């Protein structure tokens, strides 16, 4: 009897200690995460500009989001109730288009990791070089890319212009030679001289951001994750394949690719989840607030505009919740699918 009493006191004291230890974190968690999630759900059923009293509007915000042409307009299908929209593409499309960088980036990261995984000297040095852009990511590298992409004095357009001059000069030489023998070659087309205004041009702003994104991430976290995955592939597999006469290409697709598929899957899902929320900082710093003509406005930036520029708190909250539902669905899919599609060695 006495023993059990002692045990309960001891257990109670241990429980008390446990609660005290998590208390600071749980307080922060309640105030800054779990209550705000509920608050933003409640907020999404209201109209509030922070100055005048808030007003319950039911599902109106979500209804407005469903018919928001700026959000939905896309080149693939037309939505009947969306008639008039000055934008070329809507913000959902912009977000998805910028996510083109994800598959390209994954392939490049894997490629780099395979190259670095060879037993050669100096690989750590190369790894550090490739890692540099993702270490320094932030406003510094964004300003740097604005400068590289500058339409008049940017180095990228300078190189493009010089390449054009050089090629057309060489072509002129060829033309002269053929001219001596009576051949008539057409002139070097002027439109080969591509020097877009990048971030100021609707058609080129997204490719420019994708290019910067690839530079920033291909040698970053993903490459490190791939390197770790590659190092855990048993070398015996490769040796056996070699003995069986498999070439490098076959060894890659039949051994490496399946063995790193859990990593690929993880990176892919995490990048997509991140991609849906991304694009804010680029839009705010590099393209004058999602320009030109709204072509780099992503969902994340649209939420920012609504909440902190136009003070439509309720509408912003409803878009944020829509985003949350997408992320939630993807995470659920991740849990289910990782069992089915991924090969765990």
């Amino acid at each position, binding site marked *: 009897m006495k023993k059990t009493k002692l045990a309960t006191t001891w257990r109670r004291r*241990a*429980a*008390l*200690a*446990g*609660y005290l*230890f*998590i208390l*600071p*974190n*749980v307080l*922060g*968690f309640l105030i*800054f*995460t*779990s209550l*705000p*999630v509920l*608050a*933003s759900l409640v*907020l999404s059923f209201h109209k509030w500009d922070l100055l005048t009293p808030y007003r319950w509007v039911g599902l109106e915000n979500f209804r407005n989001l469903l018919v928001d042409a700026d959000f939905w307009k896309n080149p693939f299908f037309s939505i009947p109730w969306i008639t008039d929209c000055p934008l070329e593409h809507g913000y959902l499309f912009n977000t998805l288009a910028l996510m083109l960088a994800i598959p390209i980036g994954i392939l490049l990261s894997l490629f*780099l990791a395979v*190259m670095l995984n*060879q037993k050669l000297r100096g690989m750590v040095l*190369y790894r550090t*070089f*490739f890692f*540099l*852009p993702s*270490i*320094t990511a*932030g*406003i*510094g590298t964004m*300003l*740097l890319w604005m*400068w*590289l992409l500058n339409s008049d004095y940017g180095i990228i357009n300078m190189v493009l212009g010089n390449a054009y001059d050089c090629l057309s000069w060489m072509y002129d030489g060829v033309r002269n030679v053929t001219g001596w023998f009576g051949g008539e070659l057409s002139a070097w087309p002027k439109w080969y001289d591509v020097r877009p205004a990048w971030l100021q041009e609707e058609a080129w702003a997204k490719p420019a951001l994708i290019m910067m994104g690839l*530079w920033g991430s291909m*040698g970053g*976290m993903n490459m*490190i994750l791939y390197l770790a995955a590659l190092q855990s592939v048993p070398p015996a597999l490769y040796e056996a394949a070699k003995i069986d006469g498999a070439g490098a290409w076959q060894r890659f697709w039949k051994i490496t690719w399946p063995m790193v598929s859990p990593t690929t899957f*993880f990176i892919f899902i*995490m990048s997509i989840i*991140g991609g849906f*929320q991304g694009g*804010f*900082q680029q839009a*705010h710093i590099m393209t004058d607030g999602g320009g030109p003509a709204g072509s780099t406005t992503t969902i994340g930036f649209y*939420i*920012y505009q609504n*909440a*902190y520029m136009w003070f439509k*708190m309720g509408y*912003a*909250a409803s878009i*944020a919740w829509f*985003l*949350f539902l997408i992320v*939630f669905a993807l995470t659920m899919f991740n849990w289910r699918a990782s069992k089915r599609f991924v090969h765990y060695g």
Partner: protein
Amino acid sequence: MDELTTLSRQRAPIRLTTVLTYVFLTALAVTMVFPFVWMLRTAFIDPRDVSVSPEKVGGFLRWLVPASFPHTKNFADAVEAVPFGRAYINSIIVSSLVTFGQVFTSSLAAFAFARLKFPGRDKLFLAYLATMMIPGSVTMIPVFIFTSQLPLWFDGALSWLSGSSVTLFSHSYYMFQNTYMGRPVGLDSYFTLIVPGMFSAYGTFLLRQFFMSIEKDYEEAARIDGASTWGIYWRIMLPLSRPALATLAIFTFMGSWRAYMWPLIVTYHEDIMTLPILIRSFQGQYRTEWTLLMAASIMHIIPLLIAFIIGQKYFIRGVRIGGIKG
């Protein structure tokens, strides 16, 4: 190993694929690093040399490295134009305190989740895991409203208590000998920049995983010697998990150093802005002064590089343990 050394002594023939690998990797490394070289060049030349063409200055090399190089005045000019020094101090204060707070609260909670038994523990941990997928923009809106209203609520409560109208929290100028100190709470305050960042489900998760992997023998021995729970946490768990703490610290510091959206929406006064926000406002005023902008960019990047160099080992290990933080 012996076989390898004898082989190398015999001068193994240099393979073509090896040479090609090196050529390719070098070309790629140059492409990756070149933008930084260009940034340095731009930051260290006279603004007038930015827009000239090679033909005008007579020669490619003269153009590449102009006579004005190294023109260090750009940094002085940038610092003179806006309060960079203050922003640096702000960023260091905010990032350090956020890092310290996050490592402290996360390690406390992680210890409880990993080692202490109390009712509801596993459910709570699941709730933590679940919140890791909530987009920041969902929670940011209510937290912004909450922090912006906080001074009004505090003053309202004080007015109600004292019976007279109090504006202690909601008036905007708090000076200490000509230095703006920020408000105590609400927008434009260190409190708002720091406190919401001090709690992290991700950090708790990371440290819990590490604590779980520590042998229980140490703490059982300590228990027998009469150590308290706090003693076990402070004297055994923390020292044993130094690598994990360092990993979390370096991730948090770098994340906080480049944090953009939250500091952007909660700061209006120049003297309370963190470095990225001040650079952004600087960019708005000097949009074509590329030499100054590159100088500012370098100022933002250098602490990140230093943090990486100090914690490189932990950083790369951390990527492997924890994956990426969304």
